[in-house]
């Protein structure tokens, strides 16, 4: 143990003796570790954000979408042929007791406008009244279209918070008129600002406008169902409910699986799979920079061992064992890389605290990233320091003493 502490002291003093060289060789490690830690924390925060978004919708949501995603699906799923029908909706609603708030959603193309303004990015939904619950919509002012609105094909509409803002500014939108596909609608409600999206890659709830589904069918003349969403009555029943939905729709489609039933869990695992691949790729790229840094360390340690041949001879003459010499040079290598790791972690911490909390990707300081960075830099020191250290320990004492 005394030898170990001595060795650290000796290593530090010999590194200090060559400050510029030590610093330059550390630089490669700093860059490598910094790349790894920043890519890692970006990947982690993207993942937690996506997970948070998906989970905020509630874990008991079940969605039936067009096309068979899992089985490759072929052409019809690739172009999203309309395979879902009102019949599917009715069957699910009547035959499956484990689910509630079953609702159909249809997408309508068109622009939402008033006499002088329009919302170019607006997504127009026609949906069952129960979508208020199944999509977890929160109304800020007014109300959501009711069953009665649906049955009477009323020309009423709910505006997303952002859409309402763009059309009417700060004045209340309730009771105002908007125009979609040459049809006038009365605004009956405005939603609260929602932070979540319907699903990953899905539309922004804040720019959605929603009308009753019957109304949508009537103004477009097409009876289309884009999605059927629902909620399992209890979270533990999600999977059995999912199976039941699959069975019912499959029977409707005469055994042809041209649809997919998704739960939040499924979406989460698909997204996680994609994120895992991304993280691994980023990690591999960062790994290359670390490899280059490690080779730099190895190079500098080889030079150092060769320059200090005589010192090694002297140490051996006064009683240093091979192990002691090996330890000395190995520790020098590890101190170099750990120092690089520490500098990288310091820069990382400073950078993380500099990222504003409201940035698109808020990055949190992550102790795991710090621990991983330091562990990795020590590992690099061992991997790339061991060869020069073994070389040093094997030097012949007499030849070393004669070395000029």
């Amino acid at each position, binding site marked *: 143990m005394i030898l170990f502490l001595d060795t650290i002291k000796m290593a530090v*003093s010999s590194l200090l003796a060559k400050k510029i060289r030590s610093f330059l060789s550390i630089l490669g490690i700093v860059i490598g570790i910094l790349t790894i830690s920043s890519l890692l924390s970006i990947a982690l925060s993207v993942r937690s954000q996506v997970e948070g978004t998906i989970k905020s919708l509630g874990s008991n949501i079940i969605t039936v979408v067009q096309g068979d995603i899992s089985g490759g699906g072929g052409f019809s799923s690739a172009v999203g042929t309309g395979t879902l029908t009102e019949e599917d909706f009715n069957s699910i609603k009547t035959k499956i007791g484990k689910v509630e708030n079953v609702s159909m959603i249809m997408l309508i193309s068109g622009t939402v406008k008033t006499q002088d303004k329009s919302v170019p990015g607006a997504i127009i939904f026609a949906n069952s009244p129960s979508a208020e619950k199944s999509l977890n919509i929160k109304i800020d002012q007014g109300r959501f279209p009711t069953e009665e609105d649906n049955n009477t094909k009323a020309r009423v509409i709910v505006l997303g918070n952002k859409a309402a803002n763009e059309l009417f500014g700060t004045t209340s939108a309730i009771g105002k008129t908007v125009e979609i596909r040459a049809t006038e609608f009365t605004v009956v409600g405005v939603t609260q600002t929602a932070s979540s999206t319907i699903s990953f890659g899905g539309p922004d709830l804040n720019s959605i406008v929603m009308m009753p589904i019957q109304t949508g069918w009537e103004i477009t003349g097409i009876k289309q169902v884009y999605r059927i969403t629902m909620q399992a009555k209890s979270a533990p029943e999600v999977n059995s409910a999912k199976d039941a939905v699959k069975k019912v729709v499959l029977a409707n489609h005469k055994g042809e699986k041209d649809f997919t039933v998704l739960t939040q869990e499924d979406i989460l695992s698909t997204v996680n799979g994609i994120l895992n691949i991304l993280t691994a790729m980023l990690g591999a790229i960062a790994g290359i920079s670390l490899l280059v840094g490690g080779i730099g360390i190895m190079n500098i340690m080889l030079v150092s061992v060769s320059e200090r041949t005589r010192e090694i001879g002297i140490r*051996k*003459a006064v009683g240093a064992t091979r192990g002691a010499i090996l330890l000395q040079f190995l520790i020098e290598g590890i101190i170099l890389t750990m120092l690089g790791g520490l500098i990288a972690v310091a820069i990382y911490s400073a950078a993380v605290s500099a990222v504003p909390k409201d940035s698109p990707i808020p990055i949190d300081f992550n102790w795991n990233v710090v621990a991983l960075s330091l562990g990795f830099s020590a590992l690099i020191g061992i991997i790339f320091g061991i060869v020069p250290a073994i070389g040093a320990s094997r030097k012949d004492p007499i030849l070393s003493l004669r070395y000029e």
Partner: protein
Amino acid sequence: MIKIEGVTKEYKSGETKFLALNRVSLEIKTGEFVSILGPSGSGKSTLMHLIGGLDRPSQGKIEVDSIDLSTAPDKTLANFRSEKVGFVFQSFNLLNTSSLNNVSLPLVYSKKKFNRKARATELLDNVGLGNRLRNRPSQLSGGEQQRVSIARALVNDPEIVLADEPTGNLDSKTGEQIVELLSNFNKKGKTVVVVTHDEALAKKADRIIRIKDGQVEQ
């Protein structure tokens, strides 16, 4: 007690072989002050390295205080160098650090429990360098450097001091001080072996072993 029996040391460089020592046998008793005298290339330094456990013979046996150095593993040799011997070299072989650090270096690897700083200071005091503790070799004269290296050789309280041309790089007056230090150590009952090509230096020893072309001259 140093016992050397039929020791041969052969160096190979590529195809050519070089016989540094050829069937050398000799004995040095504990407490003796012996000089090994010979021209350069006679194999006297090789002999010293073998006695000090820095190298192993190609053939034959070397026993120092009942430790067989010819077959001992590396670790045993390292411990032997640490506990039993102290080396003094012609070119001093000091590290570029303070006298104090140089002298305490053997204690880093030693199993003997000394208070390092106190022991190193004491030894530097004994060689008259009590006021040069913080100086680096470059700030010291040749004689002072050699005295630091003698202090280093003695710091771990060895049984044997092996000195290879210890006065080779020094003027005669400084050389005499060095010989006196070695002789003082010998008076404490310790063994001193000085390797040299200098007759005058060799004569200060109790006994001269002459070596030529790798063989001891009788």
